[in-house]
């Protein structure tokens, strides 16, 4: 009997139309758990580093987290992986929603897709029945639109559908995979799905997911649920509203956008607009949200309501959104919320990432203003920003004219455009557009996270430690009084002593040693979540979450029938983290790539920054080029990685 996992993967060769149900090796679970861990192992074993992103040899894997579909609140994440067209590294993007649990109930932990279908198809899974069906009649349709038509065609309103829109079909480098109220949108995995000519996957499952030790498992689930209820009633004082509660930042619920609109940068991540948030704007945007937000929504088995149904000129629901996508289009186009929510509907149907798409469009307009791109590049584009954004979005997802260049994202587009365009692609890490955030003083914790995050996305590495010190010692002492989530007592001390100004403030405090520990803790939490499929919103992302280092080992053990203690979980997590890094090392990632955008902070400290990287690499057991050392690899049982690195000349043998 396999617990928590199903023990089977679905392997689909799209070139030949062959479908196989493959029993997986039970020994992989104690080594990697599931989700990102076993996805990474799959890529190591099966996808050589020479593989081109848009080649039949690339694999696209939908991997459920180990605990996905169990009664643990928030256990619903699917980790989608492929070699990314944007970074050309191992890419992974995650989605909540309902797809992962449904896939587990159908009897599979992962769907592995390889090859390229000769014609457009979609994959239909209903328990043991799996088929590739003609999708020619859905080509060109939107993500939600085609999902709905597929459900009708299958006469199965309960099927969960992951689909791509025009952007994925046309292999846009930042195309997303949309799934009801969630999406796997970073790093262009929708483009890989399009390259495989797979329009959608519809899944329906009616099988059981087994729990190894039910009473123990449910006792923790119950505690977690009670903690959430209590935590929802008691938001953390002293931090901005979106960081006070659990879940993904509660962008759908709150109206006060002073912090985002005045601290994040508008346009092509350029302009800070101090004093933007007036009473008049507040009234107008609140009105927009109340008019267009029909309902707050949750993912599978989660009490948080991070998402919302948004209605554009209807009383029902046009699409679903969450988090900061609320403002990315608004701010990139220097417009208002009504515009942002309207264009986001089109963008969701086309299936594009809500960080990269608006930024790429703002980048295009900047190049136009700077004279680097010419009016002839934009034939018929409306002159107003909003009209221009709709026009550009349409060209990008169809790869028409200048849209074909922009569809590769700012990094690659700038290279193709040349003529000084590179300086305008200024907000990237590892070739990927970042949050439009430009700040004053270097923060050592964030410096390391930005540099070393393997997903090139700050929200996938930050979380449990406050983003900034609280103003007074009293507030800080109050905060640590009730903070059992920390790995050990030192973290409390570091926070208590962290001042806004003076000796113990950024960039020199937290000290380099403390910074390494803090970054490591936050990253570790994300790697656990990405393997278990528990949502970061209840675990690695918010302050004081219900899941933490001290209850997760028991939960995972009781659910999957493992014997994991804190040290054991740490070891599994380090193994997964290093394996993900090694996939990228194989593909050329080195220290030189690990840098935040030059203008991310105004005040930079090159010497300190290099020291931070030096020490963090040492802390992680990596050499000064960011490559895991022989000792690290052998200690984690990654001998096969070590041998490969020696063969490739990445590490020295002996």
């Amino acid at each position, binding site marked *: 009997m396999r617990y928590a996992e199903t023990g089977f993967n679905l392997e689909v060769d799209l070139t030949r139309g062959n479908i196989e149900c493959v029993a997986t090796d039970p020994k992989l679970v104690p080594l990697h758990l599931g989700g990102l861990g076993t996805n990474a192992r799959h890529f190591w074993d099966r996808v050589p580093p020479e593989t081109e992103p848009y080649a039949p040899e690339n694999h696209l894997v939908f991997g459920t987290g180990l605990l996905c579909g169990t*009664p643990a609140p928030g256990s619903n994440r699917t980790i989608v992986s492929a070699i990314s067209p944007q970074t050309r590294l191992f890419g992974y993007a995650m989605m909540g929603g*309902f797809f992962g649990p449904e896939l587990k109930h159908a009897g599979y932990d992962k769907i592995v897709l390889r090859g390229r279908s000769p014609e457009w198809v979609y994959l239909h899974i209903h328990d043991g029945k799996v088929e590739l069906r003609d999708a020619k009649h859905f080509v060109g349709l939107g993500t939600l639109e085609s999902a709905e038509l597929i459900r009708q065609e299958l006469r199965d309103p309960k099927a969960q559908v992951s689909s791509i829109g025009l952007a994925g079909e046309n292999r846009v480098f930042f195309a997303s995979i949309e799934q009801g109220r969630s999406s796997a949108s970073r790093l262009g995995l929708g483009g890989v799905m399009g390259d495989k000519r797979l329009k959608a996957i519809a899944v329906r499952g009616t099988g059981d997911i087994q729990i190894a030790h039910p009473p123990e498992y449910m006792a923790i689930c119950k505690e977690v*649920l009670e903690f*959430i209820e209590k935590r929802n009633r008691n938001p953390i004082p002293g931090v901005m509203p979106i960081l006070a509660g659990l879940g993904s930042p509660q962008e759908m619920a709150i109206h006060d956008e002073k912090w985002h609109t005045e601290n994040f940068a508008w346009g092509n991540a350029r302009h800070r607009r101090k004093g933007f948030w007036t009473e008049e704007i507040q009234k107008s945007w609140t009105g927009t949200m109340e008019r267009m937000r029909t309902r707050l929504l949750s993912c599978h088995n989660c*009490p948080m309501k991070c998402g919302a149904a948004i209605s554009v000129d209807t009383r*029902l629901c046009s699409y679903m959104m969450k988090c900061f996508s609320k403002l990315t289009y608004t701010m990139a186009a220097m417009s208002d919320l009504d515009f942002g929510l309207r264009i986001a509907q089109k963008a969701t149907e086309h299936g594009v990432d809500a960080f990269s798409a608006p930024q790429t469009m703002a980048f295009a307009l900047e190049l136009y203003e700077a004279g680097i791109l010419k009016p002839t590049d934009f034939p018929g584009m409306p002159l107003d920003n909003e009209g221009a954004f709709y026009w550009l979005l349409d060209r990008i997802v169809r790869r028409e004219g200048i849209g074909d260049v922009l569809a590769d994202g700012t990094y690659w587009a700038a290279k193709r455009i040349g003529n000084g365009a590179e300086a305008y692609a200024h907000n990237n890490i590892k070739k990927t557009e970042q949050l439009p955030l430009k700040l004053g003083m270097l923060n050592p914790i964030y410096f390391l996270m930005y540099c070393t995050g393997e997903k090139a996305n700050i929200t996938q590495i930050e979380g449990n430690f406050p983003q900034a010190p609280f103003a007074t010692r009293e507030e800080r002492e109050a905060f640590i009084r009730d903070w059992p989530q920390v790995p050990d007592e030192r973290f409390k001390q570091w926070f208590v002593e962290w001042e806004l100004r003076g000796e113990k403030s950024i960039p020199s405090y937290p000290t380099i040693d403390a910074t390494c520990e803090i970054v490591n803790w936050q990253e570790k939490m994300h790697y656990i979540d990405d393997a278990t499929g528990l949502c970061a919103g209840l675990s690695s992302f918010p302050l004081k979450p219900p899941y933490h280092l001290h209850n997760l080992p028991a939960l995972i053990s009781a659910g999957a029938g493992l014997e994991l203690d804190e040290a054991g979980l740490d070891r599994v997590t380090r193994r997964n983290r290093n394996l993900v890094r090694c996939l990228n090392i194989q593909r050329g990632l080195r220290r030189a790539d690990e840098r935040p955008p030059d203008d991310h902070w105004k005040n930079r400290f090159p010497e300190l920054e290099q020291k931070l990287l030096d020490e963090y690499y040492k802390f992680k057991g990596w050499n000064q080029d960011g490559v895991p050392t022989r000792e690290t690899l052998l200690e984690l049982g990654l001998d096969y990685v070590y041998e490969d690195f020696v063969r490739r000349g990445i590490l020295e043998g002996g």
Partner: protein
Amino acid sequence: MSKKPRKKLVKRIKIDVDKCNGCRACEVICSSFHAVPRYSSANPARSRIRVIRDPLADIYVPVYAGEYAAAQCAGRNEYTIDGKRYEECSFCRASCPSRPLFKEADSGLPLKCDMCESDPTLEQPKCVEWCLAQALVYEEREEEVVGEEEAAPDEVELGLEALAAKHGWQTLLDTVTRLTKRG
């Protein structure tokens, strides 16, 4: 039998469809609670509560499994409430041939909500406990009823009724007679 008014405990789950956030935790915990052994598995397909969802139509209706219906309705109505169109099935509790809801996934036998009756008694049904959105709220109240107390059917009686519903009373009687004679 006495005709005096007497107290009867009425259990009720109040459903507020406007508060439902569509998470299906009720389905997960119901199936898990009713698993044998308890909590040993999760599977919404076995749940005695299902959320009728149509996200793009903004429809979220938690519905509890009620009586078994041997045949589907001859005609079904459609309701428009506050601009939303609901099929009659959206509110129907029956385990019936027209849809896959409220049937044991393996055997196809009908399921019915039992308000999580168990020993010791729970404070409230599990689905309510797990619904932090408070779309499901449990209510117990005592009502005064006049009339004869309904005798609770015992297990044998329930079993016989089920057999009769399947095979007809005559077959059942014949079989009982035959078996009795044999004994």
